[in-house]
């Protein structure tokens, strides 16, 4: 599989409000502290649409918007790969509750918001994208599967936005599927041929190995390890930590009974500052 360049990154999670403010925590240079502030309300959609958005969609839009801003690309030029294990669990729960009544009457809006690709749909509507858009799921390995799909999508030559997002399910589903706190991570990938682009954060290559990963999150600080073990989208944390540290890293993500091996090579130490600066501008 051809390597990629990472040209943009975004995230939102407890105590991790975007990439620049989280960089020191991700790099292990500052302690993590829980802070469940909700993600910013996306300015991309009309107010009526915004009010109805659930937590997982807001998480996704916040991370995706940050990543494409850092990449400095027209987001409509990118193919989109969204990855979510739970989808919008609050909506699914409300519909299941109504369906258990004798003569159920579903809300049409809730029904269309229940599709697994709702966040992907709202993103393409918000930016007016007509680009190919996928939505991937694979239980605890959802982030690894989304990353694999996003790297394969680079075959068309266009940049690819990968956005992984998951939020806790409400009771009683929560007892069947534990997800600790909401988390979203987004990456803009580009084909890695040729010279490094000015905003490149580094090169990423992948390998699928049909044997299990041993202690995949052991290198993370304990607080971040708990996040990674408590939300499928937060399995992006080892890669986010490598980018924030600006150091080469070899990582392994669990993939069912197998593993996905990641090799990250920063292109230039100064690139990170340049890329973050561009994203802020």
């Amino acid at each position: 599989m051809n390597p990629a360049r990472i040209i943009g990154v975004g995230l939102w999670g407890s105590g991790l409000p975007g990439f620049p403010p989280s960089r020191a925590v991700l790099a292990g240079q500052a302690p993590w502290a829980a802070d469940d502030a909700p993600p910013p309300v996306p300015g991309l959609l009309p107010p009526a649409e915004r009010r109805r958005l659930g937590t997982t969609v807001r998480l996704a839009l916040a991370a995706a918007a940050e990543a494409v801003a850092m990449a400095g690309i027209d987001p409509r030029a990118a193919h989109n790969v969204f990855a979510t294990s739970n989808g919008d669990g609050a909506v699914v729960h409300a519909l299941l509750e109504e369906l258990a009544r004798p003569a159920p009457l579903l809300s049409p809006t809730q029904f269309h918001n229940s599709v697994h690709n709702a966040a992907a749909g709202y993103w393409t509507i918000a930016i007016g994208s007509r680009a190919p858009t996928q939505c991937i799921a694979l239980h605890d390995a959802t982030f690894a599967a989304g990353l694999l799909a996003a790297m394969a999508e680079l075959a068309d030559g266009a940049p690819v936005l990968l956005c992984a997002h998951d939020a806790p399910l409400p009771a009683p589903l929560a007892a069947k599927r534990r997800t600790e706190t909401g988390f979203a991570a987004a990456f803009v990938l580009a084909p890695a041929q040729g010279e490094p682009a000015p905003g490149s954060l580094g090169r990423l290559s992948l390998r699928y190995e049909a044997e299990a990963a041993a202690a995949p999150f052991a290198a993370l600080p304990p607080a971040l390890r708990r996040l990674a073990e408590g939300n499928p989208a937060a399995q992006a944390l080892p890669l986010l930590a490598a980018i924030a540290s600006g150091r080469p890293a070899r990582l392994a993500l669990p993939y069912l009974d197998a593993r996905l091996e990641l090799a990250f090579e920063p292109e230039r130490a100064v690139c990170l500052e340049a890329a973050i600066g561009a994203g802020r501008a």
Partner: protein
Amino acid sequence: MAAMTDPATPNISITARGLVSALGHGLAATADALAAGRSGLVACDFAGQRRGFIGRVEGVESHRLPARLAAFECRNHRLAHLALDADGFAAAVGAAARRHGPGRVAVVLGTSTSGVLASEEAYRARDAASGALPDWLDFEHTHDLGALPRFVRAALGLAGPAFTVSTACASSAQAVGLGTRLIAAGIADAAVVGGADSLCGLTLAGFAALDLIAAGPCRPGDAARDGLSIGEAAGFLLLERAEAAAPDAFALLGWGASSDGYHLSAPRPDGAGAALAMRAALDAAGLAPGAIDWINLHGTGTPANDAAEDQAVFAVFADAVPASSTKAYTGHTLGAAGIVEAILATLAIEHGLVPAPLNLDRPDPSFRVPPPPAEPGRPGHAQRERPVRRVLSNSFGFGGSNCCLVLGRPDSA
């Protein structure tokens, strides 16, 4: 016309097929129903829903999974298992796994609702005091959106990369395309692609809430069409590089995807996003529009879908290629529609048959793409002026997801 074709992309052949739908179990039963012009739709009587008609698969209730797969027991996986059993599909995958190694066979499957029916049943059995769900609900292996490819990977003894694609009614068409990407990227040598969606209260009541369920059997393209009929189905293709296939094997000649970026459940009225997907699929196949012999429309039978799709098809093909929907045969099988219709496309080529449009009493006079007229005395056959060599199949989903597949034989150019 091969300018857009990436020379590094290997030709991907179809080396096995498996299908169950309301038309029957397996390819022969399906082809018989098409040739006879026989619809699988019946009046709806499922999960307490009584509105409209449905395409229900016979024998799903009585089918049981093997004991080693018992954790996955639910309607969606029973349906999928029936399709793995059909037409020797599982055996063909077994042979491919021996050739390539089980870790080199990927599983990429589409579903819109996975095993949600299991959760629907569990919500009716909640503990009255605590509200807790019953112990028997195994969410991870049934309702969870990742359950289907995990089930199929386990059932087939595979160890390669697997995932679900869930882009509503475009899901399994996208899965076919993404399977080819994994082979092209060198991450797999073969891929089991397709998908499954089964009847459930969520989709029956949800489409009713949107007022999109037809009162009678759906009537795609008809002036008096009033909605869709939901169906269930599971279908699979085994994809391998052309070198591994017989010279006359079917192939995915090209595929294309796009987004509407317009509305979560309504199509763009001008069909511009859908047209983009069709053009991308033709470009990837290196084919001019006139090289297509039949277009299998998404053709759900809702007023909005069929009108927008007519605009989209006319923009790409004008009125040069016959176009019709097979939804009145199978029902709209939602996330499985893409794989069902890809397999129907191969059957059309194999049997030299354009399925006649059903329930099309008066074609919408505003449409510019003409439906193929029925052949007198042969109810399932539409008239055709040329052999059916290449078929383009459309699938569009909520979220504005569009996907288009081109199927044929590689030597048919």
